[in-house]
């Protein structure tokens, strides 16, 4: 049980890390929101599962936290994206070039 819980905690932490890397590497705000939302949602749910395996008596509160994250996290992201689009922030477009791309500068 302990090992399973640790696995979930590790998976959650890893996806949250990927989300953070995405926030830095993505070229524009919309893609950053995408990286942030998805990774953090699954990451936190995985963390919650891990915690509920460690402390089974907390399951009802953890379930509520999970539900609220599932509903509010994507909603908040779309609201931010909507506000950005309304205020005129254009989505990033890749410039097509003939030369092979050197895009690894982060």
């Amino acid at each position, binding site marked *: 049980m302990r090992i399973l819980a640790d696995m979930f905690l590790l998976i959650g932490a890893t996806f949250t890390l990927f989300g953070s890397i995405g926030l830095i590497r993505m070229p524009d705000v*919309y*893609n950053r929101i995408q990286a942030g939302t998805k990774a953090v949602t699954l990451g936190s749910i995985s963390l919650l599962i891990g915690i509920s395996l460690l402390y089974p008596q907390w399951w009802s509160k953890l379930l509520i936290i999970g539900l609220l994250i599932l509903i509010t996290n994507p909603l908040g*992201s779309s609201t931010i994206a909507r506000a950005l689009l309304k205020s005129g922030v254009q*989505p*990033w477009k890749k410039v097509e070039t003939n030369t092979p791309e050197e895009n690894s500068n982060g």
Partner: protein
Amino acid sequence: MATKPETEEGSGLADGLFLFVVVLLFWMLLTGSLDPSEIITGAVVALVVTLTSRPHLSIYSGVRITPMAILPIINYLGVFFWELILANIDMARRVLSPSLPLRPAVVEVRTDLRSPLGRLALANSITLTPGTLTVDVQDQTLLVHWVDAPPDIDIENATRKITTKFERHLKGFLK
């Protein structure tokens, strides 16, 4: 989000009952005990909440309350969590690959769901699935930001794929 109140008032009692059950379940999860006194207190609170907020809450009116709705809900949750995991693996792959493979575009997607709750669920689902982010909802058109839009052949058909896999199940329990 542009939510327009539902005009039909036919199933007001059922909606109220649904709201009551949701509030009561929420209470029971928060208290975390099945003690009779807790449940009675919760029932009273849920009743007061239902009576005071029901006339102002139109969002619950889109739910189909039938036993037939259970199967679509389970299907939907299964599809949803599977897509969420896929989305994260996809996003991790994009983020970690040195060339940053992105072809972003903003596309319009139409939906058949009419109720505010249905469109909210669909919008949230789209946001959490591979490479798509709902930007705006206007009546029955969703504005979706797509990380990896296929180069513009048959974009209509490609966008349809985003919605149908959720819509199919959502239609079972939401209007």
